[in-house]
């Protein structure tokens, strides 16, 4: 990573911390510890399942919300505060600004996920009193969640590069919802005919496939996740993020900032 990108990334991270983004960890800690203690009393035989399902779902949703709401403001806030002009008046290229922002936000989410993962494992230990080898798959699920964040961060940046913060949030969240239905969209495409099929197939491949990255249920049941899936999901998230970031750079490069 070049030094300017790294500098923008570290500033973005610091800004997020200063904005008290990591305060969500308190809510997460309360949620997961409450679930670990209470579920045993109101349900039967699902303490471990709840901790894993609730923990990983909360990690995902908290992260998605942070990624969207911070991501959409990364560019517009800099324009609004006019700090962007200060940055771009120095020897910083526009693409470096976008990529730096992306890495900064991604770093924030990775740190956030790291602390939440500690919470999930602590709660798991509390309910199960031990760790088993299959618990390692929870790390894979967390890794996939981080991959989801990378995609959402890049998509949020893409939308924020040409739209208002409110519309960017709507677009990004809608894309997250549609991406969760990507498998259904693909199924619909196979059932339709003619031009509808063509459009549905195009849409199914264009939206991010979050369902492939969601292995929460499987790891909650201690089912293994294949190495091939890990590798291909990694490549998919990498290329999808690269695609969205490229789009953001292309738009931002041509954007009139006057």
């Amino acid at each position, binding site marked *: 990573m070049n030094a300017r990108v790294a500098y923008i990334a570290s500033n973005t991270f610091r800004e997020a911390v200063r904005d008290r983004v990591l305060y969500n960890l308190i809510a997460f800690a309360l949620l997961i510890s409450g679930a670990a203690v209470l579920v045993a009393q109101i*349900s*039967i035989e699902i303490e471990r399942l*709840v901790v894993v*399902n609730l923990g990983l779902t909360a990690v995902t949703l908290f992260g998605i919300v942070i990624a969207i709401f911070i991501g959409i403001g990364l560019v517009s806030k800099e324009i609004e505060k006019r700090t962007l002009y200060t940055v771009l008046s120095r020897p910083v290229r526009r693409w470096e600004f976008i990529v730096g922002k992306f890495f900064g936000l991604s770093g924030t989410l990775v740190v956030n996920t790291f602390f939440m993962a500690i919470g999930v494992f602590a709660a798991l230990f509390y309910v199960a009193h031990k760790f088993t080898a299959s618990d390692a798959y929870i790390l894979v699920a967390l890794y996939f969640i981080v991959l989801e964040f990378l995609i959402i961060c890049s998509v949020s940046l893409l939308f924020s590069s040409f739209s208002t913060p409110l519309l960017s949030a709507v677009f990004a969240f809608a894309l997250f919802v549609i991406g969760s239905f990507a498998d259904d969209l693909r199924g619909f495409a196979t059932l339709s005919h003619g031009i509808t099929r063509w459009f549905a197939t195009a849409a199914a491949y264009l939206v991010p496939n979050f*369902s492939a990255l969601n292995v929460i249920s499987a790891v*909650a049941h201690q089912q293994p996740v294949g190495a091939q899936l890990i590798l291909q999901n990694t490549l998919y998230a990498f290329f999808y993020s690269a695609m969205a970031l490229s789009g953001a750079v292309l738009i931002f490069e041509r954007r009139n900032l006057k």
Partner: protein
Amino acid sequence: MTARGRTTALATAMLVLSMAVCVLLLRHIDEIRPQTNNEDVLYLSSPKIIRRASLGFNGLMACIYWTRAVQYFGHRHVAQNRSYKELAPLLEITTALDPQLVPAYEFGASFLAPPPPGGAGEPKRAVELMEYGIRQNPDNWHLYYDLAFVYYTELKDYKRAGDAFERGSHTPNAHPLLKLLAAQMHEHAGDFDTARMLWQATYESSNQTEIKENALEHLRSIKVDEDVTNLQNAVTRFQERTGYPPASMWELITAVGLRGIPVDPDGNPYLMALDGHIQVQNPDDFPFITQGLPLGYKRGEAPKLHVRP
């Protein structure tokens, strides 16, 4: 105190006071407003729609629905409600959301199958639930065992129970008792030994305290049923031989050559009514017995579970 300090103290006091008043008011409002039964309503009853709406987080949704099913059953069970019409849909939604959630099949079937007020009285839906669970988890022998259990205890369909045990015995890591139970079911389905074997297997194979206690209770009841049946047969034989029923338990045991008056699992001697009817002293202590109940005895709505310390 500075002006700022005074403001802080006043605001803190107001905050605490307002919060307390709100809590008190809400408690009063809850008392006076008509009570609704929101928990009994399933706004969305289609498992497919709920699965879609869960945005891929169906594991968590399944846990929520399973907890809801447990709470629904528990509240109605405690309230001695005889209607459990939302139980089956709740279980179907739960298992559609997470087909690998085995406790929902195992406990769900035991909620659905028994007659009210102990359960929903829907053994056929319990069978459907178990069959669905078996299709989703074909290698889990517990599910075949529980299916056979429903056939055996609620539907008295010993052939199907035997078939279910047989199918379960072919799964990997199946409990060795399954093969034995399959054979037993085909040959001696109604015997006390078969019932005892079944509950013994339940007791040994479960880690759940509640299930173990329930199995223990059934084993105690089987012992009573067997003792009473044997004693009643002895009374019949005595009557056939002498032309009149034995005048007392002593006369009966002397006639059949027993060493003393037989006792129930709690150590209380069995009683004999004037007409020769054998009965237990404390029927409330044996919630599952079918023999030895005093004439005209009506079991309380809530079965009293006798749990040993």
